[in-house]
């Protein structure tokens, strides 16, 4: 078999397995969703913002809730592989170990995107903003892809640590700052009636982050995972 096809099949199998485990256990996506909704509710009631202010802050609050939810998903993704040393099973597979990175980061992206799809209409309702805007979709996808790629890389880095549960957010939030800033700015431009062209530079930053963190996963994931 073509080595590239073999590699792709391993990535797809890891995604398929993650979906299957999630479907059986339902321990990841529902928790992410409830948590992100709680963030939306809490900010809405705690800040008691006027409609004008709400419009300005909507993009920021959306990304805060997505980032928190995604971090929960990443922690769950790591603990799943730690349970019964299932990660060793993946490491024993006869393929370049970067396939594990792509499989895990794409399944994390899939779950976080599902949460975003449910969150957007509810968010629109609470903050009086129409987030069901087609121009927002590529920004959300790129932002989440960059965030989950970086998150998967850091989750692998923290997997051996005793303090992994707290280590992941401590490492992830500062490093994800460029992603979050670019995603918030691009979303704000689109939500305030601007065009995609106006948010082009922010979208390019997101694209650069996607390329950078996926290239890092391709090159360093094996080294990160090996003891």
């Amino acid at each position: 078999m073509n080595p590239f096809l073999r590699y792709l099949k391993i990535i797809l199998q890891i995604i398929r397995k993650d979906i299957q485990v999630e479907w059986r256990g339902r321990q990841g996506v529902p928790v992410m969703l409830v948590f992100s909704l709680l963030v939306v509710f809490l900010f809405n009631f705690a800040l008691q913002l006027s409609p004008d202010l709400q419009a300005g802050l909507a993009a920021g609050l959306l990304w805060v809730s997505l980032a928190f939810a995604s971090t929960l998903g990443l922690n769950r993704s790591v603990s799943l592989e730690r349970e019964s040393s299932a990660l060793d099973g993946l490491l024993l597979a006869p393929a370049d170990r970067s396939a594990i990175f792509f499989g895990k980061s794409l399944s994390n992206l899939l779950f976080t995107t599902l949460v975003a799809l449910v969150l957007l209409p509810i968010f629109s309702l609470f903050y009086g903003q129409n987030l069901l805007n087609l121009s927002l979709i590529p920004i959300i996808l790129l932002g989440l892809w960059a965030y989950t790629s970086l998150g998967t890389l850091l989750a692998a880095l923290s997997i051996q640590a005793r303090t992994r549960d707290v280590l992941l957010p401590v490492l992830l939030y500062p490093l994800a700052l460029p992603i979050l800033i670019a995603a918030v700015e691009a979303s704000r431009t689109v939500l305030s009636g601007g065009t995609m062209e106006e948010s082009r530079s922010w979208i390019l930053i997101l694209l650069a982050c996607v390329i950078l963190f996926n290239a890092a996963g391709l090159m360093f994931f094996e080294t990160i995972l090996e003891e």
Partner: protein
Amino acid sequence: MKRLPEISPAEINVRGLVKRYHYRPVLNDLSLTINDGDFCVLVGANGAGKTTLLRVLASLVRADAGEIRIGNEIIPSNPRSRSNIGYVGHQPMFYQDLTAAENLRHYARLYQVKGTDQTIAESIQSAGLTGHQDKPVRTFSRGMQQRLSLARALLHQPIVLLFDEPYTGLDQEAARFLDAKLGELHSPGRAILLAAHRPQRLLTIASHIAWLKDGKISQHIPVDSLSQVPELNAYLQEVG
């Protein structure tokens, strides 16, 4: 003309292996050869480095120095060479919410085993788990999980089998099942290395015994020559 695929001999060759943890050498210039058809029991005190050696051979841990050959392949330079290895570790490596069959299917797909459904059915049967294939692994006893681990390690028909303390936590029935399976697996075309803290029950099945001490293999002899090495004999009597 189409070239026939090269058949790799079932051998493990380790030369000058060094592995340090926090600058402390656990394996120190270790050399070991397990030939085709050998079943070698690796003994040593707790912390001697048995697990580390097996994990290095399985390419789960990177060595600091030395060369490892499994068959014709140098580990870990070619990821595909991992398909020559079957590894049963301390933990079963299963997803607890998935069923036995789903877990095996996952591994069969990772190893890209052909005829997956038939292979899984045969593996389940051979592990004595017929009727349990659709139950989540979390409902399995330690013995059942260990049988399933063995089935998982054999799915892709590896030429080298590595076992790390496989008897830990097994009751008498499960231990007898494992004895029988290991006896079946000990055959030409396969090399077996099994780490055991208490190896007495294996001395009737295994062909060789290797003693890991001070980061090196201090003795590696056929089991029937055990009486000629009083020091090793005394050690085995002591650990029971």
